[in-house]
């Protein structure tokens, strides 16, 4: 079992980690982390970012505007860092799956595409 984490490192314990909700549903992975300059001069990590545009930006900064043009921010989602209960290769979140917009593609596909195919629900 992994040891308790004493020092938090953004890349090791947050970046690319699996996001799991309190009811055990996998909703996605961390694509990027948003940080904010506070007035007192500190840099604070504020939000987890998920979505194809953020992933495109990880591959190359040049891809970010292209992805934004094609996808129009429709698939980008954020989760405030204080929603995270446990850090590590898996981030355990405080809320349930329906509390987050991340992973809503699964629900959308289930409701609009899969239900027309027999055998998808039983």
């Amino acid at each position, binding site marked *: *079992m*992994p*040891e308790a984490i004493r020092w938090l490192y953004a*890349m*090791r314990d947050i*970046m*690319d*980690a*699996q*996001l799991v909700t309190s009811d055990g*549903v*996998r*909703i*996605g*992975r961390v*694509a990027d982390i948003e940080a904010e300059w506070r007035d007192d001069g500190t840099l604070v990590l504020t939000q987890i970012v998920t979505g194809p545009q953020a*992933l495109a930006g*990880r*591959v190359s900064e040049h891809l970010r505007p292209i992805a934004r043009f094609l996808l129009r921010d429709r698939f980008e989602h954020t989760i405030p860092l204080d929603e995270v209960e446990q850090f*590590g*290769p898996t981030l355990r979140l405080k809320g349930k799956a329906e509390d987050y917009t991340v*992973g809503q*593609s*699964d*629900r959308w*596909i*289930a409701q609009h*595409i*899969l*239900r027309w*195919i027999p*055998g*998808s*629900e*039983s």
Partner: protein
Amino acid sequence: MKQWLSLALGIMTATGGFLDAATIASAAQAGAQFGFGLIWAVLLATGALILLVEMAGRFTAVSEKTYADAIREHFGFKLYLIPLSAEIIAESLLLTAELGGIAIAISLFTGINWHFLFPVAALLVWLLVWRAPFSFIENAPATLGLLTIFFLVGIGLLGGPPHALWPTLWHPDIPQGQMATYLYLVAATLGATISPYLLFFYSSGAREEHWTWRSLALNRATAFIGMGFGCLGSIALVVLGGIVLRPLNITAGTLGEVGLAMARPMGIFGSLIFATVLFSTCLGAALEVVLAISYNIAQGFGWEWSEDKKPVEAARFNVTLTVFLLIALGIGLLGMDPLQIALLASTVIALFLPFSLAPFLIIMNDRTYLGTKTNGRFANIAMIFVLMLAFVVAIVSIPLLILSGGG
């Protein structure tokens, strides 16, 4: 007790990963052209595979993370794209070849042209991944694959290998000008056997089976018995090819010629057994390949996944499965011979083998995931040796393919 029934995972992984359309044909061809001269390559490949499978299983049992999870988490999204791209290309081609194998097997039973049966094969595989729970997917092809034992029966019925054949085991008889072909078959045997998709599947299967650190002994047994079983089947085919096809100077280029090898000792019954074995190994392989690539994508992107979940509970995962079957259907309808496609797929796999296997060396030494169960010195040295082997295979496969004129 139930845990030990999941030895089936190992046998199925072997049946799907070790024995399929490509390896059946290449094993028979190896026997037909060089007698026992390539058995050492099968044994070497088996050794490497046992090492890799044990590591994949150990990693997942202890960390409760799969191999694809680990690649994304440890190396980041950008580097994850390298093995992912290789897998997407290779598995799309391989899936097409396996569906072709299923279609050919059904055509051997029914007499219908296999081109028309191709969509039937695709539909069959889709129905299984859509509806069947993991335990069924694991057990059904494995059970049918046990028929491979009949290859050994066939050898017995033929009175065993003739005396002249035994020396080729340690002193291969390579005719003039055939060295490139011989070396090509060595590389092909290694590359076709040590397939990364097998590791993605096995690792995910260990999660489907809810293995924990308590499953380490089971994992070791499964790795040895499962891969050992596959090895036995391959060797049996090489021997059969040597006994039946070599004296007749038939090189087993098509599945039909391999069927001949089976038919001789047992007549029509032998042909039916062969068709059944071909069906079950290609079905096992098709399931394993389509699941491996879909597991890889779902896990890499953090989606819900599992064959034990209803499709609506793992929507993107199931869509991915369907999309890959449609891609394979599309490639298949172009009409290329399944063996040629399998050859192409194996070459792609061989080229990227070092990149697909290198992550193992690093994650197997990561204490965050494995705690005290990281690799010992022997495992690390063996792994480095396997990686060097993979590099050699990657570098020589295309030149040898050209020099030998397609094997």
